């Protein structure tokens, strides 16, 4: 039983898949903490590269800007996508598939083109020069589509008749949303917020066109390439990965402790229906 060939093949496939996914990241992580960064095997541990990165003020500014873009893009796109999803599910009726298709279409536009179009449009009609606001607006376009898909999978399980009940018992539509709807759907909104934050934080193509001279982490890394792959870039990649994995870890812990249930309705919701 224990050595069934099928089981071994399955295990090997899983291991190979994970190696494929994580080896490059592990390599960079190892390199950024060792003295011989170009070929860190066996590694000689050192914090030199990290120190160099953190003493470089360009990267600090870039990190700040990336955080700003990530946060505000995530807030805006989650709020808009939440409203759009509720509209789709409650009021769109038979035309819902059409509206949905139009909402997610930006996903299929190349990000570079999205960046260029936004640059031209924002400059021409909104009077926005290349700056953070312009970059945030452009990032919201595709983040919105992602957020909509994430929130829709969550809200699909929500029983809208709970809203009917709240309204019959005297709650105005706004009150109904804050007293009943929001407390039950916030895990979906949080999921969308986290994913869109990471997307906007990591984005190069869109931000690049709209930022002008303002650096973000990806654009600073891209710019640094002109002078060759410097060890600072190793450290930078590791830091970005750490931030992203930290966010995912928080999400994972929330799921495991059942504070938040992504994709599942909590027990006490399900049995009430």
């Amino acid at each position, binding site marked *: 039983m224990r050595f069934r060939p099928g089981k071994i093949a399955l295990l090997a496939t899983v291991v190979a898949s994970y190696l494929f996914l994580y080896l490059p990241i592990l390599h960079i992580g190892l390199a950024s903490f060792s003295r011989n960064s170009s070929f860190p095997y066996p590694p000689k541990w050192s914090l030199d590269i990290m120190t160099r990165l953190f003493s470089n003020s360009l990267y600090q500014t870039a990190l700040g800007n990336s955080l700003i873009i990530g946060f505000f893009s995530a807030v805006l796109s989650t709020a808009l996508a939440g409203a759009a999803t509720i509209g789709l599910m409650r009021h769109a009726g038979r035309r819902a598939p059409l509206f949905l298709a139009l909402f997610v279409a930006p996903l299929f536009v190349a990000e570079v083109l999205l960046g260029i179009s936004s640059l031209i449009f924002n400059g021409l009609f909104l009077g926005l020069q290349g700056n953070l606001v312009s970059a945030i607006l452009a990032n919201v376009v595709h983040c919105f589509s992602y957020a909509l898909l994430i929130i829709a999978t969550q809200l699909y399980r929500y*029983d809208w*008749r*709970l809203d*009917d*009940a*709240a*309204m*019959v*018992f*005297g*709650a*105005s*539509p706004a*009150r109904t949303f804050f*007293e*009943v709807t929001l*407390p*039950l759907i916030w895990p979906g909104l949080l999921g969308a917020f986290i994913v869109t934050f990471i997307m906007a934080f990591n984005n190069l193509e869109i931000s690049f066109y709209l930022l002008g001279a303002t650096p973000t982490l990806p654009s600073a890394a891209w710019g640094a390439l002109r002078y060759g792959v410097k060890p600072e870039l190793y450290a930078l990649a590791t830091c970005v990965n750490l931030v992203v994995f930290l966010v995912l870890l928080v999400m994972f812990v929330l799921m495991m402790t059942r504070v938040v249930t992504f994709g599942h309705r*909590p*027990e*006490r*919701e*399900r*049995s*009430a*229906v």
Partner: protein
Amino acid sequence: MAYITLDGVSKQYGSVWAVDRVNMAIDKQEFVSLLGPSGSGKTTLLRIIAGLETPTQGRVLIDGEDVTHLPPHRRGVAMVFQEFLLFPHRTVYENLAFPLRMLKLQKGEIEARVDWVLGILALRGLEKRYPNQLSGGQQQRVALGRGLVGRPKVLLLDEPLANLDRELRQEMEVEIRRHQTALGIPFIYVTHNQEEALSMSDRIAVVRGGRIEDFASRTDVYDRPKTAFIAQFVGRSNRFEGIVALAGEGIAVRGEGVLIETGPREGIADAAQVAAYVKNEKVRLRPAEPGAGAAANALPATVKHVILRGAYAEYVMSWAGGELVASRPRREAEFKEGAEVVGFWEKGDVDLFPAPGEMP
């Protein structure tokens, strides 16, 4: 002046009229049931009164005020839903306090009223539980309590007992009616279950295809069905078809192997095709007498099954034209399966309706 008035209320979905020109006047102390098969529009009608749907045409008046275009939260109504729809993230106490908080009552008043409702519905001790920690019956009581606690102008109940088992349902029927009498507010109760409607209501509106087929006292609906649909839908009946032969004062209906006589009826023409209904409990039984000739309102039959229903026995019999069912008290003479009997009934127990193109 009626307390609740529906004036020509209609609701159109696409090309379908889910509710079709409904007029109703309901008094303040009344318990009214909307009884009809699923898809008859009774729930839509209830949701129109609640304000969850807007009628395509017509007006809704509650306590003299035209509320047709008022949103649900400003109508002062309350509702008990079939699926309970308790707020899953709120405790029993918070669920019950919800309508009171929306009324912006003082904290002390809210506590007093929730305590009152916990008391009358025997929910004390469950205040801190969440809905998923309650049994179906307890959830149902909380749902009912949430409907009563705000002392609404009218309580709307949408098949509230459909998800409960039979025993619990009968208990709740008594309880619901008791609270209605105590509070003195109208209850409008939607159900497809005739037993529920008959056990609780003052008046029953039979709904069919979006229209009110009849709106009358429960005894009238049961004993004097106005249409063939009501005769079929309310109570359990034996149906016979035949041709009318007017005979002096009364009417004789000649069917295949059966002769039915009734008193005079209006609107029944000579030689018309009709359907006659006799309720199961109106069919009496006697042993067959060999050699006796055919008589009116008497049908020779063979007992096939005897179903015991506690105080009653249901005899399922076969006769030349099909099946005959009689429901008799147990204290009467009992017949065994296979017995030859005669099922008979009184002239006055026959309901007669024109048959062609009427029944679905």
